């Protein structure tokens, strides 16, 4: 009845033909916001780093076996492919670490909980800066002389 709300809304939705989406998701994905996606990423990166760490300890342990053994394995890491994978690793650690700090801020600081959304984008910002610093350098190391 309050004509105010009704009239200015209806103008637009009225005209466009209805888009019939044939999509029938089996149960839709929950459309959470920043908080949820940051958690998803935190979890994925955490697991990835964990598995990397397992391998990394084993390969480093080779220094105890012999210099040869160690160097052979490490040399096999020095392919461009592994160089790119290392970018992924650093990206993962970077996100996990910065977002971990965000979580800690939320936990201990009311301001953090209130502004978690902003903090998420700050995390992404810092993370991008970090990668912007790291990636060119890494590419130089890997592909450069």
């Amino acid at each position, binding site marked *: *009845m*309050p*004509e105010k*709300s009704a009239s200015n809304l209806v103008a637009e939705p009225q005209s466009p033909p209805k888009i019939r989406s044939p999509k029938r998701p089996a149960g839709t994905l929950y459309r959470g916001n920043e908080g949820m996606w940051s958690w998803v990423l935190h979890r994925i990166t955490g697991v990835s780093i964990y598995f990397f760490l397992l391998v990394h300890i084993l390969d480093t342990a080779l220094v105890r076996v012999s210099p040869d053994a160690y160097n052979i394995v490490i040399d096999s890491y020095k392919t461009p492919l592994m160089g790119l994978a290392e970018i992924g690793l650093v990206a993962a650690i970077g996100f996990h670490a910065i977002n971990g700090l965000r979580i800690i801020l939320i936990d201990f600081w009311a301001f953090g909980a209130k502004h978690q959304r902003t903090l998420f984008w700050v995390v992404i910002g810092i993370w991008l800066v970090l990668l912007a610093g790291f990636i060119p350098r890494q590419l130089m190391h890997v592909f450069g002389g």
Partner: protein
Amino acid sequence: MSTINTGDIADGTVIDGVHYHQFDIVIVGAGGAGMRAAIEAGPHAKTAVISKLYPTRSHTGAAQGGMAAALANVEDDNWEWHTYDTVKGGDYLVDQDAAEILAKEAIDAVIDLENMGLPFNRTEDGKIDQRRFGGHTREHGKAPVRRACYAADRTGHMILQTLYQNCVKLGINFFNEFYVLDLVMTEVDGVEEPSGVVAYELATGELHVFQSKAIIFATGGFGKIFKTTSNAHTLTGDGVGIIWRKGLPLEDMEFFQFHPTGLAGLGILLSEAARGEGAILRNAEGERFMERYTPTLKDLAPRDIVARSMATEIREGRGAGPDKDYLFLDITHLEPAVIDEKLPDITEFARTYLGVEPYTEPVPVLPTAHYAMGGIPTNVEAEVLRNNTDVVKGLYAAGECACVSVHGSNRLGTNSLLDINVFGKRAGKSAVEYVKTAEFVPLPKDPAGGVKRILDMVRSGDGTERIAVIRKELQDSMDRNAQIFRTDESLEEVTQLIQKLRARYKNIQLHDKGKRFNTDLLEAVELGFLLDLAEVLVYSARSRKESRGGHMREDYPNRDDENFLVHTMAYLTGDPESEEAGDHIRLDWKPVVITNYPPMERKY
């Protein structure tokens, strides 16, 4: 007489697909009144609470403004003034002994709630804060008084939650989403006595018979007979309807309160607390029109008067909007901080549902059907009356479904939350007293038979009529004809319509034939109750040829104490499907209890 012997039906027996239970006390309804009774009864007797909703979904939770009690925490006040206001507010149709109890016990009722944990708003020195509310005055009408104890604008929510919390604490037995559809009466020595209730379990579609010594009805109101209402979709008056169908009387059904400030077009309530905090009603010209009608109390006059004044403004063409059909509630002069602290929810409603920003814009409002003053007649011990003087043994009622009558022809704001606490408690106490000595009344043969018949009738419905269509026609007509202004013609019109709708109701069509969560079926059953109650309301209203409180007859605009200073008692006496309402409804009158306050002209 063939009966199932009480000894034979241990709790949990299933006979012919019907489950049998036995409790000392069964409480029907888990709103404020029901749970308050349960808290009283639970520790002393084997008690079950049966509710068609999860307790916290009950409509008590929607109450906003406050609960009256002359605590005198912020200014001078006493319960005698409160009694006076209640009597005067109810236009002298109030039973004054009951009103006295209400006002006196109010103080304990509030303290009880506080002790149970209710988070009231507080004064600077830590006491329960109080605010102004319509019709509550100091020294017999001299000026508004701060009497309403409150928790922001969610007092009802807090009461409901607190009562539920205490029921959890006491381990009360709840049967949630069980629809009570019948009261079982057994003839004992020529008198019909209640022996139990029959409930329909929503989840499974199965029937349950609860045999019990005492039964308390606390099923709330029936605002859904109107279209524009502050009441929930589930407030269909099932409890009142059940009592009616048993041939027991209903009192003062013609008195229905229309709350002045419902969100225009929606009916969602904006509490009187807004006006208690200083909000002002204005017409399209921006005029504070209540100054003209009630110079002393202005916007804080009782609801019947404000609602009527609003209707008059609109009739006389001073309404706002394209159709000049609504008015404004203005709180723009209040500090946003005050609004946020005291009225957070209702401002949120205005924003969400009308897209209006109450800080800066006045909110469009219209009167909305709100509260049933009438209902199941009881005495002050909450015992249900079977006529003007005798009670039905073991049957109690409290809350909005009951009529004690503390509200007379018009309830004062904040007196209902009080009513449910005071008389809910009394109902619980009375029942506990009663079951100490009472025996189970044996159940009749096939106690669920009546309900089975109703359900079969509805379920077999492969007619052509849609439930929603019939309901809408009823509600539209009630709004048009039996709302704030009534005349013999308008009431006649609805009466006619109800007869027609009743015929069509027999031809309804049900889409859901399943057993589990069949809400289609229940809506049909509820519609049956709505039709019955609308008819009693209208029939009682036609016979009251005067204007009093919430009942305004344009053809009889004055109060007529000579003939009508009496309560209406309506009885179902014949086949409800008979053509003429008069063929199956009998009216009787019950004297009003007058103690200290002889009727006077009502001026504010």
